[in-house]
């Protein structure tokens, strides 16, 4: 049964391990490994004042993009979410954007 559900949608419905789930399953399609942007570009300071950078990590509705989608590593995501929350507090970013 598990092999029959080889659609790309099934992997994203899994709660954990985006990349691993695909690899351990039958290798049917290739997915590029996501990397943490902050680690790769060596950005140590995730600052709440840098709205342009933070904007890349909030969804259309103003929500924080989850790690499994953006590929940001654990420590960076923690700092990123803190920065986004600070920016929201001072009206640099929306709590809930109206589309």
């Amino acid at each position, binding site marked *: 049964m598990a092999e029959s559900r080889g659609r790309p949608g099934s992997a994203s419905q899994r709660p954990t391990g985006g990349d691993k789930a695909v690899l351990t399953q039958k290798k049917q399609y290739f997915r590029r490994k996501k990397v943490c942007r902050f680690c790769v570009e*060596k950005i*140590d*300071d995730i600052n*709440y*004042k840098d709205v342009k950078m933070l904007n890349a990590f909030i969804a259309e509705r103003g929500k924080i993009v989850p790690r499994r989608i953006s590929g940001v590593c654990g420590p960076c995501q923690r700092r990123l979410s803190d920065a986004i929350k*600070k920016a*929201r*507090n*001072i*009206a*640099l*970013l*929306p*709590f809930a*954007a109206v589309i």
Partner: protein
Amino acid sequence: MRIYEELFIIKPDATEEEIDQIVEQMTGVVTAAGGTIDKTEKWGKRRLAYRVDKHREGYYVLLQFTCGPETVKELERRLRVTDAVIKFLTVRIDETLKRLEKRKKHREKRAHRKATAAPAPAQPSVAAQMLGTPEEPK
């Protein structure tokens, strides 16, 4: 003494003089308590991400200063009673700065080590090649 950052929003309809007066007043609070102002930045008028007290715009001012924790309490109280200030955010940044400094040093150290270590393994490998090549004809 700790390093803080204060970002606050003044009503968009305030005049330049009023803004200057508020900034001066806040810097006065810090200096009077024995702190020092490190940086004052006026971002100017910006669109707010959401409505605050029916305002869609606001004048952002950023202060960076060094002072004790009691001074911050006083400064926040002052901001709260000032009618023209619609929002403010205080962030303690000395620990973050320390962390960044440490990280930067670590990066440099690693880069330095990489630069010095890179030629070192290359030499044995060349030696190994030189040792290896005479053996091949045999």
